[in-house]
């Protein structure tokens, strides 16, 4: 089964400021696509529109040819993580995942499974307010994996994770893509993207400045870091 995430000529304005201009890219099955850009470049805004949280002023963002808001059981198609845990601090982790499962008709046994999978098996009864940053991040990942989705959309997934957690997520995402799944992740950490991604979309000041397989994007530069500064710096200078 093929599941493609496609973003086509996306425009988003906040007040009079255009924060996304003609953003176009695809994330294809079997590959990890990294959305790379400095802070404030428009990575999160793009993902929020793709996930149906914000509206685009123009353009489309589709999951398998449909807008996210049209999906009936979205968690079974796209697992996503934005802003850490996304749980009210006074809930337990288990309650948070249970209501999410109920909302998409996912069997409740999945809650214990994903908690174990992300290493929070012992913390299911703990209130989210007592979690560390890394634990919140793991809970967010558990929520993304809950519906066994074919696509994963993750905003800054390695934020707050310890080295062991970072390696764990790298293996997880690689395995997901190798099994034919689609992975789209955003990051401002070049070393991370360099090690995980197959395809790269570099975004700066709300525009896509380069896209393609990671070798093509970095061709002609000694490292990804050099490519990144050359690509994003050029746009900054050209404004």
């Amino acid at each position, binding site marked *: 089964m093929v599941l493609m995430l496609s973003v086509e000529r996306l425009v988003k304005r906040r007040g009079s400021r255009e924060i996304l201009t003609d953003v176009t890219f695809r994330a294809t099955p079997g590959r990890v696509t990294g959305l790379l850009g400095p802070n404030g470049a428009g990575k999160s805004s793009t993902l929020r529109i793709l996930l149906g949280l914000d509206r685009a002023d123009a353009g489309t963002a589709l999951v398998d040819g449909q807008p996210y808001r049209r999906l009936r059981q979205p968690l079974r198609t796209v697992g996503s993580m934005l*802003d850490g845990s996304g749980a009210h601090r006074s809930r337990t982790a288990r309650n948070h995942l249970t209501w999410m499962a109920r909302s998409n008709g996912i069997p409740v046994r999945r809650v214990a499974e994903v908690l174990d999978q992300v290493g929070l098996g012992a913390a299911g009864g703990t209130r989210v307010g007592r979690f560390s940053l890394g634990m*919140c991040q793991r809970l967010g990942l558990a929520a993304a994996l809950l519906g066994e989705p074919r696509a994963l959309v993750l905003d800054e997934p390695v934020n707050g994770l310890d080295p062991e957690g970072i390696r764990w997520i790298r293996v997880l995402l690689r395995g997901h893509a190798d099994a034919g799944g689609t992975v789209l992740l955003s990051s401002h950490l070049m070393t991370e993207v360099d090690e995980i991604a197959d395809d790269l979309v570099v975004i700066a000041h709300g525009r896509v400045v380069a896209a393609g397989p990671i070798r093509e994007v970095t061709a002609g530069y000694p490292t990804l870091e050099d490519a990144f500064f050359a690509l994003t710096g050029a746009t900054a200078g050209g404004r």
Partner: protein
Amino acid sequence: MTFFDTVAAETRKTATLPATAVALAVTVLGPVAITLINAVGVRAALRSGRPELAYTSPVEAVFSAVPIGTVGAVVLGVVAVGGEYTANSARIGGGRQITTTLTATPSRLGVLAAKAVTVVLLVAVAALVVIPASLALAGGIVGTEAPPAPEGVLSRSVGAGIYWMLTALIALAITVFTRNGIVPIIVLVVNSTLVSVSVLLSHLTPLARFLPDLAGTSMFAGDLLAFDDALAPVTGGLVMATWTAGLLALASAVFLRRDA
């Protein structure tokens, strides 16, 4: 760092919270709006020659509007402390401002005292604006048909202002205990309205008049009092002030001992 610096920091911090702006708006515009409605009612009642239908004078139209200002004062006291314990978005690790506050000013008592001073200042400014404005508005609307003003308008005005300040401080102290604004808001807002639990208790025991809100009400209520054998205004004010001081002392003790 002097205490003055701490007060300046707290004033800036509290005054720039959006919730504070809303609370100040409620404290100022609420009584003015209700005075307006009341005064129109008084004028209509006087014109139709049936003054028993509404409050009898422009002055009562103002003092019956005090409860809505109390709501604003409660919110001010609650957000001054409650804002510290509200979490940031989870992305920043769910951090709370209290950590920043206490690393900037390690003296627990200094922080609490500065918060109290800030709240009192804000409420005092609001009261100085709203009470004269409401009196002028009510006088203007009812106009020459008004019966002669009753005695003691000035002392009752001061009393209402003090009542608001002490209520805000009580709200602040309770929020230190609960570390969360919801409970003090519900309890204090409900209790400052017609469905006051204190008034209910006053039917059961004469001791209820020593409760902080009922004692304080006698500072401004005059004939509007909802219960019998109230304390004299000055005594009532002193009783309420004693409650406030006691709750603040208890709050300081809790705040000193607790980990941030």
